[in-house]
């Protein structure tokens, strides 16, 4: 989903494994954003440029179309202002890669409906009291969300570990990766901050 030589911004880059790979394998010009101090140390050890910042506060300093690709890998579900952040990502990047855990996976459904317990799955490994996730979405939710907001889904991959899921992904895939472009929805410059939405 990332072409060679791309300019890449990774929002919530963690210890930087993904942008490290893109820097080495795809010759990408990368920039990471991360909040956690220890994770930043790990990025710097790998020789990566990373800025400490809360991605939830937005990307106002970046001009429109600063990057070819903006990555939101396993960070969208940890953000309260998810819509605001996605629109910002699509403003500063030509395309956005979003990866998130699927809350409607079969094991999550079983755990909730039969066990009566808040789901814990390989992609949602947290207890209710220690999860960093604040948004719980399914693949179907995200598809509808993109349609409603006018985000163009260029590609989508549904994964169960390393295995690609083609049929019934909302039931069978633990996680999803979407490649979005803004379409007409985000071309009007910087967006207004939406209320927790």
């Amino acid at each position, binding site marked *: 989903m990332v072409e060679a030589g791309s300019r890449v911004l990774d929002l919530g880059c963690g210890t930087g494994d993904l942008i490290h790979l893109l820097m080495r394998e795809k010759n990408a010009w990368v920039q990471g954003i991360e909040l956690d*101090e220890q994770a930043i*140390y790990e990025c710097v050890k790998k020789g990566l440029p990373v800025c400490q910042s809360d991605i939830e506060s937005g990307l106002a*300093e970046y001009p429109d179309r600063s990057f070819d690709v903006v990555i939101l890998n396993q960070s969208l579900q940890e953000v309260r202002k998810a819509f605001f952040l996605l629109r910002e990502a699509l403003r500063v990047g030509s395309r956005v890669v979003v990866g998130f855990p699927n809350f409607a996976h079969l094991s999550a459904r079983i755990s909730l409906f039969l066990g009566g317990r808040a789901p814990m799955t390989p992609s949602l490994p947290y207890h209710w009291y220690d999860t960093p996730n604040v948004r719980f979405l399914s693949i179907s939710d995200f598809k509808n969300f993109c349609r409603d907001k006018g985000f163009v889904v260029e590609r989508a991959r549904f994964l169960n570990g390393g295995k690609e899921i083609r049929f019934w992904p909302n039931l069978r895939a633990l996680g999803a990766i979407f490649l979005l472009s803004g379409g007409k929805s985000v071309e009007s410059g910087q967006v207004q901050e939406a209320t927790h939405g």
Partner: protein
Amino acid sequence: METKPKTDVVAVDAARSLGVVQTREYTFSGPQALDSGESLGPVTIAYETYGHLNAERSNAVLILHALSGDAHAAGYLHGEKGPGWWDAMIGPGKAFDTDRYFVICSNVIGGCKGSTGPASINPKTGKPYGTEFPFITIADMVEAQRHLIDHLGIDRLLCVAGGSMGGMQALQWVASYPERVRAAIPIATALKHSPQQIAFNEVIRQSIMADPAWRGGDYYETGQPEKGLAVARMIGHITFMSEQSMEEKFSRKLKKGHLSFNFDADFEVEGYLRYRGANFVKRFDANSYLYITKALDYFDLSGGKLIPPGGIDTCFLVISFQSDWLYPSYQSQEIVRLLKRRHVDATYCELKATYGHDAFLVEVEGQGLLIRHFLERTYRGERNGNGKPR
């Protein structure tokens, strides 16, 4: 740093220390044109170097000192017990690894530690300059350093690095000579002083000038305005510490265990400030303090002045400290925002050290790790996106 290690500690440290180092001088006739419109010359710069310049001349790191610092950044001067002010960071195997890098540190012009300043002899009068000394700016300091770097035969510095006023000089190096700086490490610094920072400096200056011994700056035969300078430094030390570090260091502990009911120093914090003030007047020139605080206040690289319209290739590592209220993190974040806006390769981290502004001198672990790896990456020539930032 004014820590005084015991003799045995020095011996243990010496294994990883530079050992005995020397301060040298370089003089150019100038005259150097200054921002004020005046000129200065001849100009002497005191400097120290550690490690060796490689054959490609590509491993030179310029360390820039803060307000009261000097060229003696690391190792031990002959006969002195304490090491240089950033010895924890500079030396064999340390963050600025002198086994790999050629490290340079020079005293700023306007200072009083060997470089030309108000206490130097004015060639026109044969007497110390005093307030005849021209006003200097951070850019003037950098311009004088540029003469030194030329003299040392270095076209392009691997890195410029410093905290506080040293960070301002690092920023100014990028603004003045972006093509000569591969990487910059501004620490606990700002693009410009806030009114609060200017206000502290003004009180500091007023306390010096209110001392009758200042005599309009003409005191070199009669003795320093020691009382005023000591108070000035005491104000400084309050701003260098955090509330938490003061609480941890002094709390409300009494020097003699009981209240004296007179105006002696009852509390340990009072004793500490008095001690620091009294020590400072032995080693620092009051006029230099006036001139350099003015240079700090005049510094302003906000707006488009840090990065030229064509952009830069310099990589940045920006560091701030959570407990630093003199140069709060928001000022470092302003630098970072500017870098992001202009697509500059940037790394930023706010460290959780509790020492206040002093952290840039004493916090070694986090800073050391960040600087070591950032420098290594720059030195290896690992280019982000093959060096195609735009």
